[in-house]
């Protein structure tokens, strides 16, 4: 059993204009194993999987499944060969029901050609039960949570009799409990001899659920290791190609005078009498479980959501913030957790995305001054070391970490004094995370005030000068953390309530 190879990708090469995305990549996967694929953003994981699934064509190389060479030219071909991929952006139609999504394109019909809804719904319910999930198959997918949608995708994969399921960072948007459920399902699939390729950045889960791990870097396979015989440091150093040294860079305390004060903010059902203040040169961390009201709090301060009562003071003066426009005028910037939807115009260039918040600065007599825009874009790209082929590159072509840097650049250029970062390191790799930490340190050194929301408690503890913990729309505790002495247990206890 041990050496039963189900999938082999041999000497895969793929170039895009100007970049070699994959250079002679070979990968072999054993039947029934959970195989982690990790690497920094831009290492080539997604490209490799897209070739496997027939979305891209490899320039050269072969794919063998069950000992036979296969020619996979389209997703449909891939499905016929027992392959299924669950992308981060789900392949589901929100307006259709669970059952219909599972059997999309191959709805069963009766002899007379009429769709057999009863049997389709029965089959869907069985598949869902099979993975321990009871969602009514008639529910429209649009009304499901992210984790439920994932379950539907897994059921869909199983309905194709998939032997190999690829999951692209499936846990990135899940809560802890939902993750546990996902791990349980993966365990069950494994018992059924279904092979899983698991793309992930998270070391904890790689060690928790995978059997082997392959590390990619710059389009090359660096190594394949048995998970039980390796350690976190070995994987990370292989990923980044260097010793990272200290995970969280140190900095001095620059705290100065009060720049923002929030008094008794209320929003029905979401925020309950929240008060806090923020100082110049300080990082204020906000911790809490998903749904504790962290994002809602900063959205309210930013004017994206309405507040029912409460006051906001900027530099000691009371301000009324009714919309993001008011907030920006008062020097407050919000970097949303969803950078692709709300942070960037993905189809625009790096340059255009940086200049957008402060166009008045580069407009003279109503005309855009190209040279000034170029200079400014270059300056910020250098300062934040954004890896891009040029400032005229479209943001959609950048890796997640670099996209995040462009968002930061955009708000820095807007001259905001108060920067609110909502999950600034979500979905970006270890190396880029560290760079973001350095940028945050730079910001406070410049005298900006930073509010940082993060679900990763170690990150909050390492970066924040003070920490607020939220639970059910309230601030349950404030910790002073100048000497970084707060422990994860202390924070967790307050977060649970």
């Amino acid at each position, binding site marked *: 059993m041990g050496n039963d190879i189900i999938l082999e990708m041999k000497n895969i090469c793929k170039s895009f204009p100007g970049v070699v995305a994959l250079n002679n990549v070979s990968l072999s996967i054993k039947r029934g194993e959970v195989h982690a694929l990790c690497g920094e953003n831009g290492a080539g994981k997604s490209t490799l999987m897209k070739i496997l699934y027939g979305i891209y064509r490899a320039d050269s190389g072969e794919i063998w499944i069950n000992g036979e060479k296969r020619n996979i030219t*389209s*997703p*449909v071909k891939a*499905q016929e060969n027992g392959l299924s991929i669950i992308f981060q952006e789900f*392949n*589901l*139609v*929100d*307006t*259709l029901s669970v059952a*219909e999504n599972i059997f*999309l*394109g191959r*709805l069963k*019909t009766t002899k007379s*050609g*009429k*769709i057999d*809804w009863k049997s389709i719904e029965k089959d869907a319910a069985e598949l869902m039960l099979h993975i321990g999930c009871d969602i009514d198959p008639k529910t429209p997918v649009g009304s499901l949570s992210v984790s439920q949608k994932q379950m539907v995708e897994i059921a869909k994969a199983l309905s194709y009799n998939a032997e190999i399921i690829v999951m692209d960072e499936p846990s990135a948007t899940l809560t802890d409990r939902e993750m546990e459920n996902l791990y349980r399902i993966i365990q069950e699939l494994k018992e059924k001899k279904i092979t899983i390729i698991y793309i992930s950045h998270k070391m904890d889960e790689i060690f928790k659920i995978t059997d082997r791990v392959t590390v990619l870097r710059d389009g090359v396979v660096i190594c394949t290791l048995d998970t039980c015989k390796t350690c976190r440091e070995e994987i990370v150093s292989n990923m980044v190609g260097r010793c990272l040294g200290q995970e969280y860079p140190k900095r001095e305390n620059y705290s100065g005078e009060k720049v923002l004060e929030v008094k008794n903010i209320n929003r029905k059902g979401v925020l309950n009498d929240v008060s806090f203040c923020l100082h110049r040169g300080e990082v204020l961390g906000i911790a809490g479980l998903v749904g504790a009201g962290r994002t809602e709090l900063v959205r309210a301060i930013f004017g994206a*959501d*309405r507040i029912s009562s409460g006051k906001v003071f900027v530099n000691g003066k009371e301000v009324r913030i009714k919309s993001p426009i008011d907030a920006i005028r008062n020097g407050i910037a919000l970097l949303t957790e969803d950078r692709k939807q709300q942070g960037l115009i993905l189809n625009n260039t790096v340059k255009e995305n940086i200049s957008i918040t402060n166009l008045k600065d580069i407009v003279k007599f109503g005309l855009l001054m190209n040279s000034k825009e170029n200079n400014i874009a270059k300056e910020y790209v250098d300062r934040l070391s954004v890896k891009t082929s040029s400032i005229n590159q479209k943001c959609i072509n950048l890796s997640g970490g670099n996209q995040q840097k462009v968002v930061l650049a955009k708000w820095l250029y807007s001259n905001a004094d108060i920067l609110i970062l909502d999950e600034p390191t979500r979905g970006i790799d270890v190396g880029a995370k560290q760079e973001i930490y350095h940028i945050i340190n730079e910001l406070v050194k410049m005298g900006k005030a930073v509010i940082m929301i993060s679900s990763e408690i170690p990150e909050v503890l390492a970066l924040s000068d003070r920490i607020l913990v939220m639970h059910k729309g309230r601030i349950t505790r404030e910790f002073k953390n100048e000497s970084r002495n707060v422990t994860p247990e202390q924070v967790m206890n307050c977060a649970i309530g």
Partner: protein
Amino acid sequence: MNKQAVKIGNFLLKEKVFSSSVLLLIAISIASPYFLSVDNLRNLAVQIAVYGIVGLGMTFAIIGGEFDLAAGSMISISGVLAVGLEPKIGLGPALVVAMLSGLVFGCINGLLISKAGINSFIVTFGSMVTVKGLALTIANGRPITSQSEALNNFGDLRVIGIPVMFLIFVILLVVCHYILTYTRFGRNIYAVGGNLDVAKATGLNVAFYKAILFILTGLFSALVGILLAARLNTGSPIQGDDITLTVIASVVIGGTSLSGGKGNTARTLLGVFIMMLLSNSFDLLGIQPYIQKVIKGLIIISVVAFDSYNKKRIER
């Protein structure tokens, strides 16, 4: 018993367009005794049939994530062809040509949009103008009076007192409902409109479905062109002008979203019903036609505005 009442209450609260049309129905029955007369109801039925049949075609298009601005022009040209050609080639062949016109223009629109990938707004707007020009040219700019007794009689035909046009509409309504709910073909249209990328990844022939949408609106429009010519004993090159946008608005008011992937024939029926009921009521109340347009326009905007306000309020 009580539960039933609560259920109905909730339904009426949720389906505001439906409840308002019921209220309107009651109000107009009281306000104008003529409303419930057989003549008026027949008249209303014919109106609903005309807009409803086009609406069925448009329902397919909108569910599939598109809409067809050329529908009105295709109504006009079909009527002009049917009436204009009848003395020369006979009624049967003239009707076939009229229907073919819908098929051909629908095909051209569909292929330009699905195969050449040109934006559907531009394509159907372009063919709206072109086809209307053709209709005006063929008819020499004037309405043509129908010479065919058979055609004219058909327009006034009734079966058990019900106008035959309305019966045709009901039959098509049932057929379309069946197709959209119970056939793979119909369900695939929802998938294409709901999320094009997913539909592609599932292996659906997306281009085929997109093309079909416009062929369907073409065919339904051509049919309405013939029916209107029969009813009015005339083929007019400007017959369909006002119909297209009213139909699109009706489908949306019924609750089918312009973003695609959602909707059904019942909703289209509801939308068409309330729009026609409004026109009919205005006529009966003796409101001036020009003012009618103003009021109708405002109502369309308010209904959709109210709907999206409600959605936003829930989100905020």
